[in-house]
């Protein structure tokens, strides 16, 4: 096994690189080092078939000359010469590029807040045998739940991630965390009838997985999705589970709150700070410091401190999310939302843990509160939404007709049509069952009046 990098070693390399860039003509410079070690055990078609170990590390360098930004990266960190060669490439790119008149410098030094629940030594110590054991437990639980199911694919994985950053304005930081996940995708089959793929997962920062639950839930959903009935085309009340909500928000609203989109006239929320943009029961934070959050770190992709930013309070839009560049353009401070795809990219703005505060009703009470509704677990085609206007036209699958608090039957191929911004205004109730899915932390939501195209 290649050893995880030590804090003093990576910071010393990063400092060396920044210094080398300055000596060779950079006016500002930054080095970002990323290391990840991932082990995965994979399931295919009902059995454990493979296992993988992936080590990825590298350095990304931003260098500025006359306000023109050059960037270079390399995944070869064995000799300082390799890093130096990357610096020279970044400088060459900067010299070839065009100056940016809005550039106001890399971030300056600020203290980071402490975060909890993002590193667990137990995850690092997990043996491959323990990963296999968890995968077997997940499979067994699925098969026990219903005989008609086939676990199509799944995995159990554990990762160790380290990030370090140094820039020429005194920013210097090192952070490490762990990530552990198990997931299972299942189809059920009966007499030539195939259910849609049904998916369940756990993703945590500490070793807190429940593979039996994941297997059971995915199997239950697939079996329930087998028998479908037609529903009519009409506006309906819709309950979105966290998956469906996350899919619809990711390609629309989560872009609309990015300062970059707002400043470049690509956000439907432009100019709406202080206005009502959602139902008054909606309060949402971008919480980069959330305990055990999937996207919780001490600092962001350019070394600005992570923070908790109110985005929507009781339906009123309070703030957008910023990186250093977009914040300085408006004379503001970064909200710590600069994000990196490891060492491979320049930073972009992304939400951290977009936390929609839960309500008080249990999921059963939420279903029982309406005469009829469509309960949607996942949608197909959310990525084909109009990313700017927020209009979507997607297939709800798996989805169930709910009547008087009871799941009546599954539906197939039913479409949901609307605009995410209308959807957010039409939220009438929130359940108390929040969970982490991708960039959101949210409960089930009940929405009035979504157009449902029946089949």
């Amino acid at each position, binding site marked *: 096994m*290649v050893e995880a990098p030590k804090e003093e070693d990576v910071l010393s390399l990063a400092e060396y690189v920044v210094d080398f860039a300055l000596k060779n003509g950079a006016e500002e410079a930054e080095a970002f080092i990323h290391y990840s070690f991932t*082990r995965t055990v*994979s399931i*295919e*078609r009902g*059995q454990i*078939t*493979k*296992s*993988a*170990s*992936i080590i*990825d*590390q*590298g350095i990304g360098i931003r260098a500025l000359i006359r306000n023109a*930004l*050059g*960037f*270079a*990266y390399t*995944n*070869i960190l064995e000799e300082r010469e*390799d890093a130096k060669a*990357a610096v020279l*490439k970044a400088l060459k*790119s900067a010299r*070839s*590029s*065009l100056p940016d008149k809005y550039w106001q410098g890399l971030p300056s030094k600020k203290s980071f807040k402490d975060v909890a629940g993002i590193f667990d030594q137990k995850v690092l110590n997990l043996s*491959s045998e323990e990963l296999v054991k968890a995968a077997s437990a997940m499979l067994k639980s699925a098969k026990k739940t219903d005989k008609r199911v086939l676990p*199509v*694919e799944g995995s159990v994985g554990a990762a160790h991630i380290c990030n370090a950053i140094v820039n020429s304005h005194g920013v210097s930081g090192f952070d490490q965390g762990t990530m552990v996940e198990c997931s299972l995708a299942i*189809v059920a089959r009966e007499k*030539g009838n*195939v259910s*849609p*793929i049904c998916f369940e997962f756990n993703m945590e920062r500490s070793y807190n997985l429940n593979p039996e639950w994941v297997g059971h839930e995915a199997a239950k959903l697939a079996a329930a999705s087998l028998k479908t009935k037609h529903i009519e*085309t009409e506006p309906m009340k819709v309950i979105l589970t966290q998956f469906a909500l996350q899919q619809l928000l990711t390609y629309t609203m989560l872009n609309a709150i990015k300062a*970059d989109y707002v400043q470049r*006239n*690509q956000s439907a929320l432009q100019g709406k700070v202080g206005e009502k943009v959602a139902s008054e029961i909606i309060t949402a934070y971008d919480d980069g410091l959330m305990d055990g959050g999937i996207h919780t770190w001490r600092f962001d992709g350019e070394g600005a401190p992570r923070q908790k930013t109110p985005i929507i309070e009781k339906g009123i839009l309070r703030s957008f999310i910023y990186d250093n560049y977009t914040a300085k353009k408006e004379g503001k401070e970064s909200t710590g939302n600069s994000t990196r795809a490891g060492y*491979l990219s*320049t930073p972009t703005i992304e939400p951290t843990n977009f936390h929609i505060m839960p309500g008080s009703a249990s999921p059963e009470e939420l279903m029982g509160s309406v005469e009829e509704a469509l309960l949607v677990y996942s949608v*197909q*085609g959310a990525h*084909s939404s*109009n*990313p*700017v*206007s927020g*209009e979507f*036209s997607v*297939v709800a*699958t798996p989805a169930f007709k709910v009547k008087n608090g009871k799941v009546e039957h599954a539906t*197939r*191929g039913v*479409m949901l*049509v609307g605009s995410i911004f209308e959807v957010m205004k039409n939220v009438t109730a929130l359940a108390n069952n929040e969970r982490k899915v991708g960039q959101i932390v949210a409960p089930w939501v009940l929405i009035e009046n979504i*157009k449902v*195209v029946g089949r």
Partner: protein
Amino acid sequence: MANIVKLAEEKFGVKHIEVRAQKLLKTMLTVKEERVEAAKEGIENGIAIRVLFNGAWGFASIGTLKTEPIIKALTDACTMARVASSSIKNPIKLAKHKASEDKVVAKARKNPAHISIEEKISTMTTIARTVLMFDRRIKGCTIDYLDSVGTTYFMNSEGSYIEQDKLYVWAKITATAKEGDVITFSREEVGSTVGYEIFDSETPELIGDRTAKRAIDQLRAKPPKGGKFEAVLGPNVVGVFVHEAFGHLAEADLALSGSIIMDKIGKKIASDHVTIYDDGTVEGAFGSFKYDDEGVPAQKTLLIKDGVIVGLMHNRETASKFKVESTGNARAENYRVEPIIRMRNTYMAPRDYTLEEMLEDVRFGYYFKSFRGGQANLDGTFQVGIQEAYEIVNGEIGEPVRNASISGNTLETLHKVDAVGKDFELWPGRCGKGQTAFVCDGGPHIRVKEVIVGGSA
């Protein structure tokens, strides 16, 4: 590499081992309006080792080309395989394949590695300027540019050794337009394995105009009606339909996983007009290559012939299950990850209709010209989001329509194809299946008797 293969056999008792290595240089640009956000260059070198041990796979990858860490990776791969094999019931077997030795040299007229960053910046900012100058209602333009030039190396314990130059040039251009409360969005992609000469035919002006015009035309577009309608699909939409709605179901791993195709092989699943290929041999196309990442030559694979499903896309593992030969569809995005079954250039073969002939019998329907995104499920439910559509009224193309999407069941829809055109276009794209693969898809214009149209709210 040869040493690793030998070591695996001698020290770990591994019978089948594959070693892949990669040397790669990337150049990327992000342009927002006319501002160059960053000019980026990167090096990605590394090695991957895959072993088959007692019927289970072990895989390890690491970003280095040095011996010592590679031997550690080999140890990892063997250990991982041993652990994974502990509970295997149906051991994995590989279809036989004749070993190849070859060296594939890129023959770009304009190798992107020899084009200066200044010239690339100039091409991209020209596109951006063309978009922004097209109409005052254009509010934004984002361009992502990527070229990657490198060599991959493949060796296995059966004696294959393949060195392959890899070259990709790609750009994505998006434009937004706004008038009153209406916001529109338009996307174009350019992709080629030929070289930078792609921009000689797809000139910055052509690309820029095409992207901007769509965003502007959409401003006056009306929402579609929801429901079932007759439709004519343009080559771009046919491509994404063939890829998403049918192609994924015909990837042998997904077929085995229970896709609705599984019990239909050899049976009629589409109208007589439908013939579909997945073809890795189209010269210069974005999804073309000579050998896949298991060392199997890419081929032109017939999937549907005159409505009958005759083949699937295979790697060596699924080929063994079906007792056929691999079709050369095993692709890995890069050295970090293992090869999985991916499409290459997937298309419907042309027939004999003209667009006019297809339109003339339609009293009311939709012409879907360009897609925004698509997705399918194993149960055969597909969805394709549309970025450019028009009404068809009394046999003629009418008013533009915005934010439509079509859906349906793949098999029902394939049976409803009642006319296939004689034109043909292939469009580059990127396909996600855990990993990203560069592909093309396309075909001629086709007419479908009925699809479900998701109207606007």
